[in-house]
């Protein structure tokens, strides 16, 4: 199993799941609609990545035990205030751009091709994140949120890509909160995410 790719897929699934927690309660209705599209795109990316990795994308997405997920702590956090949610969106998009660019150079044509597709869709996410960052950059809530999430953001990328992230974001590199240990929040998320699916035998149609 391609671990970095699985990590990317799990990141997209979980951040898509987290972003969809804002459905109906975003600060403005217009933004609610936009944010929801972004969440759907992330889940769509996860699905496409899972399909590269396995025959049954749903089984890979939902049927693993908790410890087999490879997502980064950044996406696992439950962030139900807008400053944190948007700060995460922004930091995640910048990090994602770096790793997707690397994947577009992958020797495997299927991976490189999918990365290119994802990259084209992400252009809209970057525009959206940058738009909000510009608008909120001087707000103390946003600055505090970005400070909180910075070590987590670094943990999204492998060590060799972190300097690039720090440069783009205009911050100093600090100790990252690494992938590998899941937060308690992931357990809660996983429970809710799989409760309906687990209520029927494996292979049941929905």
């Amino acid at each position: 199993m391609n671990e970095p790719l699985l990590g990317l897929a799990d990141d997209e699934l979980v951040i898509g799941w987290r972003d969809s927690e804002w459905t109906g309660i975003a600060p403005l209705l217009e933004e609610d609609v936009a944010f929801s599209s972004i969440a759907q795109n992330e889940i769509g990316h996860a699905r496409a990545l899972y399909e590269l990795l396995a025959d049954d994308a749903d089984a890979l997405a939902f049927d693993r035990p908790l410890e087999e997920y490879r997502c980064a702590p950044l996406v696992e956090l439950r962030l139900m205030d807008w400053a944190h949610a948007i700060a995460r969106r922004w930091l995640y998009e910048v990090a994602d751009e770096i790793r997707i660019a690397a994947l577009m150079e992958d020797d495997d044509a299927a991976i490189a091709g999918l990365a290119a597709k994802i990259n084209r869709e992400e252009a809209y996410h970057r525009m959206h994140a940058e738009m909000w960052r510009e608008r909120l950059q001087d707000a103390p809530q946003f600055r505090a949120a970005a400070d909180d999430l910075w070590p987590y953001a670094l943990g999204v990328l492998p060590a060799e890509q972190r300097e690039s992230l720090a440069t783009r974001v205009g911050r100093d590199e600090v100790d990252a909160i690494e992938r590998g240990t899941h937060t308690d929040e992931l357990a809660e998320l996983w429970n809710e995410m799989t409760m309906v699916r687990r209520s029927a035998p494996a292979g049941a149609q929905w």
Partner: protein
Amino acid sequence: MIWEIFRRDRAGQPFEHAGSVEAPDAEFAEAWAREQYGRRGESVALWLVPRDAVHVVSDWADEFDLKYRRVDGYSIKARLKEARERTSAGPR
């Protein structure tokens, strides 16, 4: 600010008014209008126009009965009926 949104349904079609979006600037208006009028692929292009920029024209003077300029100014039906009746009645 209120932005009026015009959308082009597909190539070859004119832009049509689709609704309005409230947004603080063109960037937000674009992000939000893309969603509201394009997320299901229903538009190939959008025009976003601040409501204030729209110059409204909605009154006309029609003092003199210039019927010849309008479709209802012609009473084709009656005369066509007469012409057909004459024709079916035989050559002149």
